[in-house]
């Protein structure tokens, strides 16, 4: 069902553009120009975060941390097996997708752990990436409580997600 949304949306835009005599090709050229500029401002942040994440994973530091976190998490109703996923989601979208894939295969997509992992993933975002990238076009450096507030809100959401997976 949801696969139809995008093509229908684009076709509708094209038809309206034709009616209103808007030059679509020019729009795409302008869009491309803006994209190039945007990626220039965003790239330094992405590169820095990616390097830190790679070292964090490769060194085994993330595995050690997730082992330490497993017990307190299970106390809150979140399966300890998901500790590493919970740590990856805020920092790396790609990393989290790969980890979710592994979890779904290892424990089964319809197991409690599999459903919890899916619900957590569906209800949280890459906090660090968003916080870094959204301010990239300004010289704002002090984000005040942005990251702790976002992490805390996502964490609350994850607890609720796991709780709901018990019943639904």
């Amino acid at each position: 069902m949801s696969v139809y949304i995008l093509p229908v949306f684009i076709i509708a835009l094209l038809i309206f553009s034709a009616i209103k005599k808007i030059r679509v090709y020019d729009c795409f050229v302008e869009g491309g120009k803006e994209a190039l500029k945007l990626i220039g401002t965003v790239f330094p942040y992405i590169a820095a975060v990616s390097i830190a994440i790679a070292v964090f994973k490769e060194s085994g530091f993330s595995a050690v941390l997730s082992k330490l976190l497993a017990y307190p998490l299970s106390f809150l109703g979140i399966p300890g097996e998901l500790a590493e996923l919970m740590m990856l989601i805020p920092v790396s979208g790609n990393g989290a997708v790969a980890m979710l894939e592994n979890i779904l295969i290892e424990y089964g997509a319809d197991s409690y752990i599999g459903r919890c992992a899916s619900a957590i993933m569906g209800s949280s975002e890459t906090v660090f990436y968003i916080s870094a990238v959204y301010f990239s076009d300004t010289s704002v450096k002090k984000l005040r409580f942005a990251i702790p507030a976002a992490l805390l809100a996502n964490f609350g959401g994850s607890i609720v997600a796991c709780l709901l997976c018990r019943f639904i």
Partner: protein
Amino acid sequence: MSPSRFLRFSVNAVFFSLLLVSMAIILFTAPDKAMSALLSGGTEGITLSVKLLAIYAVWLSVLKMAEKLDLTEKLSRLFRPLIRKLMKGESPKAEKLIAVNLAANMLGMGGAATPAGIGAIREMWDGKSDTATDNMLMLVVLNATSVQLIPATVVAMRIAAGSGSAADIILPSLLATLFSSVLAVILVKTLSLKIRKPKSLKGFKKRGEGVFLDSK
């Protein structure tokens, strides 16, 4: 350390400690892997950026069309009551971009949400300050808690992993994301009331009739 200082959490400090501890572990476990680990991160950053460039090119073009068709204006009218509740006193241009950002997020079009979000923050910025305003925090924290209605990617991954009922997680995930978004709004509103703004921002009031700016 006072709680407000602790909450003025520094990305630099996290980045530094993450790198330091990771490198220290590598030093003792596999020093020969240090270079390859660093480089693999850089390569990943480039791969991601190239992917994002393609996504931005597509969505910024679509956004251009929508803008010329006045669709973004209509969208912002639809979202205006909500935006004015959450982020008081922003310019119409910023409101438009915020509306696009929120709508794209809800529909799971992350590619459209990011450029709109960057543009919105840029519009909300006064051009010189180095400190995020309450409204900026609200937008970023809302984005970072995901307001997506249907987690299409996750459902697709579940189907691929052989789930018999892939859509089962839509409801818990929707309720959880609703909960986290409400929690985010509460957190930002109460924290911005409690934490004093740094001096640099006190003089400039501009459009931001921030509740707490007046109360201080």
